[in-house]
């Protein structure tokens, strides 16, 4: 056997046990404790001992007037991190039915870094900032809610009206949306 060890057996060796913290666990600790979020985003842990499942609440209010289309709303996303993080991205879903070009009625979110562009160098902060960006700049070119995307392209004013209507818990084109207004 190569020289890094002697060939003698050491019976005591097996008795010595070290606890281990998994790489995923350390990485999540690092990501969470170094979150640098604006006041528009807060995290909530249903079980503070479980770092792998939590909710992110976004209350968009930043940006110029034109970007304030989702102002006044409070949008909740569930985060589920598996033990293969950061090789696997976190699984993120919107917990409410909302009217947004990049979020479908099931809560699926179209954000490139959550799927095809995820890399282990990205972190929870990047994902959260990415999600907030969707509320400041909804993207009509990558739609999940096609009607919302078409409306945004066709008439920005009508789209803004629909957003307000949906956020109040009203209907848009026969579809019922959840009330997300905080005031």
């Amino acid at each position, binding site marked *: *056997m190569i020289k*890094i*060890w002697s060939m003698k057996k050491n019976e005591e060796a*097996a008795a010595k046990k070290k606890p281990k913290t998994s790489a995923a666990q350390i990485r999540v600790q690092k990501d969470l404790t170094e979150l640098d979020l604006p006041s528009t985003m807060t*995290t909530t842990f249903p079980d503070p001992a479980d770092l792998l499942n939590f909710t992110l609440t976004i209350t968009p209010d930043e940006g110029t007037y034109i970007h304030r289309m989702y102002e006044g709303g409070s949008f909740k996303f569930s985060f589920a991190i598996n033990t293969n993080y*950061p090789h696997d991205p976190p699984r993120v879903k919107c917990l409410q039915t909302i009217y947004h070009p990049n979020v479908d009625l099931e809560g699926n979110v179209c954000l490139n870094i959550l799927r*095809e562009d995820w890399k282990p160098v990205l972190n929870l902060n990047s994902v959260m900032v990415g999600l907030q960006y969707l509320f400041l700049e909804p993207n009509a070119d990558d739609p999940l809610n096609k009607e919302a995307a078409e409306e945004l392209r066709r008439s920005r004013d009508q789209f803004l009206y629909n957003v307000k209507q949906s956020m109040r818990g009203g209907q848009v084109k026969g579809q019922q949306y959840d009330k997300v207004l905080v005031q």
Partner: protein
Amino acid sequence: MAAVVNGNPSSGDWQDRYYDVDQILDRPGPRTAHSFMAGDGVKDFLRNQCKILVIGAGGLGCEILSNLALTGFKDIHVIDMDTIDISNLNRQFLFRQKDVGQPKAIVAAEYIMKRVPGMKVTPYYGKIQDKDDDYYMQFNLVICGLDSVEARRWINATLVNLVDPDIPESLKPLIDGGTEGFKGQARVILPTATSCYECSLDMLNKPTAFPICTIANTPRLPEHCIEWASVLEWPRVQGDKKMDTDDPEHINWLYTVASARAKEFKIEGVTWSLTQGVVKNIIPAIASTNAIIAASCCNEAFKIATTSAAYLNNYFMLIGTEGVYSYTFEHERREDCPVCGGESLDITVSRDWTVDRLIEMLVEKQDIQIKKPSLSTPTKQIYFQAPPQLEEATRPNLEKKVSDLVPDGGEVTVTASSLPFSLSLRITYS
């Protein structure tokens, strides 16, 4: 001929079984290490003492087991959590049609023992995570032929954690083979001494993922239709029911849904096996790639176990997609590797110290320069600087005694923005 003498053929062996292998083991060469014990010494170790663990008894595993048995390793353990599927039989040559449905580890072990005299192959049908440190401590070497990143990360971290500087044999060389179609890699990891699996995590190919908006709106490929069925339709229609990619009924459902979608968009090519391939992320396995990579892995195992030649330093890649190209290089350790990098520190504190006092000490420590550290044990949080809810939840711990939260000799993981990754503290009490 007489029976067993140090490492010489046992009674059941065929004649001249080790003739070729012994050409290497009977005398030192110009490149053998000083510690090489030519002749009986090395043969005795290889054939009577060395215990090797093979993780995975699939495409690579079958090749590895047969290679090891034929080069003279006698005491092999093999772990695999899978059962044999009919589609394995074209390349996993230790299995026959009658074995379909049986555990791979058990069938493979029986086959090797039946075929090669004097072998002791101990199978375990289950997960590597079922076994503890004591189990892994008994081996001299570990070879992996796995198809899962997660399992590799686990065994890598386990072997890195096993290393105790005071016990030389706690360092178990890990030889990791992997194949993907015509490409493959073999590497030698000496936990804590060379770069580990986690160090190279960012070199991995991303699993193919299509933008969710493409699969939702503008499918062009049969794969888009299958992803639509599994990513969007399954949770919508089946609710919380978990998709099991090993359940043929689930694959059937996905296949039916994907086919309907494909028809609607006039896309051709959705088949049952493509459906299974896409949802299980299967890349066609090539028998010859497995054979090359397994050979490389076993060659390394043989060299490391016998010191008969220099071993691979430390990464060999094979690209067989266009011709046969291979490249060997030394993958370097990452200082900020969450598994083998980072600092580790033994500190001794008084049993009366509070967590607050410990944090103060860490912040003041000149040689580590930590600002705002967050602390946890493998099972619980001690103090988190953020996010606010966790800071609040852990704040009461600041007043508690460290000795009430961490056992003597216990590990504390410290993260801070000023640290490249983390710091591992081993706490003992004065």
